[in-house]
């Protein structure tokens, strides 16, 4: 079974830099939810259910570091669609569709959302474009019937749901699916020999433009600093009289 894992390079949400380094130190990482997707693909392969894991990302050469990190985790090969434009989920999904059509995976596993954009759309759009079954916010995956079906547990607002999908399908990952392994040094060194294929949108036969334009980005107004109270009595008094919420 071939698994395609789309992943995105995002600014590090935890930003820990080594101060001894020059300012050019990298501050980007693989989107945490996509890392979970990569990890799941690796575990599926370790169980003997998959034979090839292909990673794909869209971006300028600066995302090569995240590609190497994915290869170091254990992805077999990677594709970078060379496109430095600011894209939206509409465009990203259509580019990925072209890659899916080229690679013909049995299943696409990807993060449910990118932690910079927080749109949570790409996997679902991709499924719609391909006409494939989808399972979103998945916390467990099991393959059945000689890998023709996948049974997935989904985390919903009300609790958990179990659905079954015919393959090929799109699965998006939620936090509790697994805990990704850290990149090991042997993995990093092996990764240097793994192929990265760079293709343009033209070469995969897609010509798409984002439909969303970002006009401005701003920080929200800060909440005013809070008041420290010293006792339960004081808290209740303030909630009653000042805040008028009790």
């Amino acid at each position, binding site marked *: 079974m071939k698994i395609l894992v789309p992943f995105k390079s995002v600014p590090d*949400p935890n930003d820990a830099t080594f101060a001894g380094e020059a300012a050019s130190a990298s501050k980007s990482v693989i989107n945490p939810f996509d890392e979970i997707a990569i990890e799941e693909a690796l575990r599926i392969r370790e169980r003997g259910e998959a034979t090839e894991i292909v990673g794909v990302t869209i971006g300028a050469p600066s995302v090569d570091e995240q590609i190497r990190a994915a290869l170091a985790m254990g992805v077999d090969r990677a594709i970078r669609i060379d496109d430095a434009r600011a894209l939206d*989920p*509409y465009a990203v999904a259509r580019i990925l569709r072209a890659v899916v059509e080229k690679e013909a995976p049995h299943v696409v596993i990807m993060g*449910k*959302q990118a932690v*910079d954009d*927080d*749109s*949570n*759309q790409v*996997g*679902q*759009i*991709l*499924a*719609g474009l391909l006409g494939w*079954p*989808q*399972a*979103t916010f998945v916390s467990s995956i099991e393959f059945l019937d000689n890998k023709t079906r996948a049974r997935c547990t989904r*985390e*919903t*607002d*009300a*609790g*958990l*749901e*179990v*659905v*079954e*999908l015919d393959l090929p*399908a799109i699965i998006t990952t*939620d936090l*509790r699916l697994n805990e990704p392994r850290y990149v090991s040094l042997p993995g990093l060194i092996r990764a240097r020999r793994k192929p990265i294929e760079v293709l343009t949108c033209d070469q995969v036969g897609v010509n798409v433009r984002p*439909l*969303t*334009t*970002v*006009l*401005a*980005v*701003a920080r*929200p107004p800060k*909440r005013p*600093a*809070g*008041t420290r*109270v*010293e*006792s*339960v*009595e004081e*808290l*209740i008094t*303030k*909630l*009653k009289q000042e*805040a008028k*919420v*009790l």
Partner: protein
Amino acid sequence: MAESLVLIEHDRQQVKRSSLHAITLAQQLGGEYELLVIGHVVNKISSSLVSLGATSVIVADDPALAEPLADRYATVIVEAVRKSGAKNILGTSSTFSKDILPRAAALLDAPMVTDVVAIEQMDGSISYRRPINAGSMFAKVKVEGERRVLTVRAAAFETPAANAAPCPIVRFDVDAESLPNGMRFISREERKSDRPDLTEARVVVSGGRPLKDKETFERLVGGLADALGGAIGATRAAVDAGMAPNDYQIGQTGKVVAPELYIALGISGAIQHLAGIKDSRIIVAINKDPDAPICQTATYFLVGDLYQIVPQLIESIRRA
């Protein structure tokens, strides 16, 4: 021809109240709007929606739609949009709408904007304000195209008034044979609770990792929530540790709440959690660390031992 079509969410028994907030966006966008209900045996649900100012309540009722399978529901939505001529397809952000609406957007070849908190009309076009980077920033965006799909953050829009003259309920014929069938619903696990829904409650009491275990979590967080008639929430760390089920999780990738009163017990205030509570009117933090980040965001904070303070608080509230 309606301008907007609003997808209403329900749990097979009744309407999910927060999904009605998208109607307020429809009203702001202007023009007529229709409501869409999809499911099976949804008469009571549909009837409860007739006074919300829509021109009609469109109902797609069929056994094949008994469960919210994204492939089927997206197909039905697309048909409903074509029939209604709507340009805006709206819903309130939830796992239901997030699962289904992007797929519908794909089929409609339309762009989608997630978690709209406000709109701005600017000479002929509309811009949408939405959170990014775990809500630490807000982006103002515009989209092109004949149609667009939008989800709203419930807390950012009011509940619509329910005093309009009743509108007709229009049944929509579903060709069950032509619906996709690559997905099957197997089971669900939901706890029914007497407590109010987390996203609708006036008061939310949340707990973090320091609550030790499930029993302690229920005793202290649940105890305080009950004393205040509120709902229970949890941080990711607490859910990961098995102290609370996943549907209690509040934060960037969990639920976003904006109650009148949010009480955070033993929560340090990681940015991903704050993303889910920033619009609460009053935030109270109870923590043993005066330097915890949440103390900067809280309206009031009390430093001390949870295990002493919370029982005292419960006692005082009951007496009052």
